[in-house]
């Protein structure tokens, strides 16, 4: 374990670089794995020699005490501190040892990555899951801002097979835990109030 940085610490190169988070993982040569999102939202990962890193922000600055669990909406803690950089919300769909399986969307395409828990914070915890399973053919989404509106094509036990079209008209398929799927609320039928007087139709 690094003697210099705590897992979850925000770090930066001595020279200009994005703010990154130390995941707690070291390679065999003592280089530290750091994670960050680029401007497009792609997760970047690299191992840096500790001598070229400086400590920017302490772990406790990020943590709000909420645990990462399945269904948590998480982000890299450092995203909150990068000026002008939009936070990339990720949804935890599984846990694997010391890592969380996170998904998010870039240009409506699903990205799934395993990310060490120490790198993550839970900006909000949402209670998921409709009491009833969504119906096949219904319009569903996932509770992160980048998620597209999808059609539920089939349910295989606890997994839902979801389809959606990209702007380029390519058809994409994703399989997500049913308990994380949210119904897309259909907009209310439009009522033109100019046709009414005191709520009563002319």
């Amino acid at each position, binding site marked *: 374990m690094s003697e210099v940085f705590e897992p979850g610490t925000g770090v930066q*190169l001595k020279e200009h670089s994005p703010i990154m988070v130390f995941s707690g993982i070291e390679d065999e040569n003592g280089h530290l794995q750091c994670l960050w999102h680029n401007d497009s939202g792609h997760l*970047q990962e690299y191992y840096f020699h500790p001598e070229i890193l400086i400590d920017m922000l302490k772990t406790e600055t990020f943590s709000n005490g909420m645990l990462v669990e399945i269904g948590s909406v998480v982000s890299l803690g450092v995203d909150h501190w990068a000026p002008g950089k939009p936070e990339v919300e990720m949804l935890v769909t599984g846990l694997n040892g010391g890592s969380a399986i996170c998904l998010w969307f870039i240009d409506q395409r699903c990205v799934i990555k395993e990310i060490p828990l120490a790198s993550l914070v839970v900006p909000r915890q949402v209670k998921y899951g409709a009491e009833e399973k969504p119906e096949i053919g219904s319009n569903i989404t996932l509770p992160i801002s980048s998620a597209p509106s999808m059609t539920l094509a089939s349910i295989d036990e606890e997994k839902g097979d979801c389809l959606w079209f990209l702007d380029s008209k390519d058809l994409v398929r994703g399989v997500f835990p049913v308990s994380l799927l949210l119904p897309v609320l259909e907009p209310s039928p439009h009522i033109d109030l100019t046709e009414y007087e005191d709520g009563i139709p002319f």
Partner: protein
Amino acid sequence: MRSLKIGDMVALKRDHQDMIVNRIDPKAGLHECIWFKGDGSIMASDFPLEALELSEARINRFLNRNPHLKRYNLLMGPFIPDAWDETDYEKGHNKPNEFSKSRNPYHDENADLDQQSQEFWDWF
């Protein structure tokens, strides 16, 4: 050229992209250099020592060819003050207090500095 060490700011000879030495493989004689693109993505590549030079050496060469320019005036760009050796000051290129003034964005000589910095970049 002296051997490179971790954290050195270097560039390929005949190029001006500053890179940082992140790993050295002494057996293979390769230096892993990293740099960031404008969108926050990282790039990395391995280079032999012969292909690299210290960014500082590049500046020195430029100053030797352009003695009318002052070192600190070039530092308005992406260069890091810590990279400069105290002995540079002793050579009369500039004084530390002059340097600190040049970093002040409200310094009166900004227009002159910009021009000199531009001359440096045009040199490449």
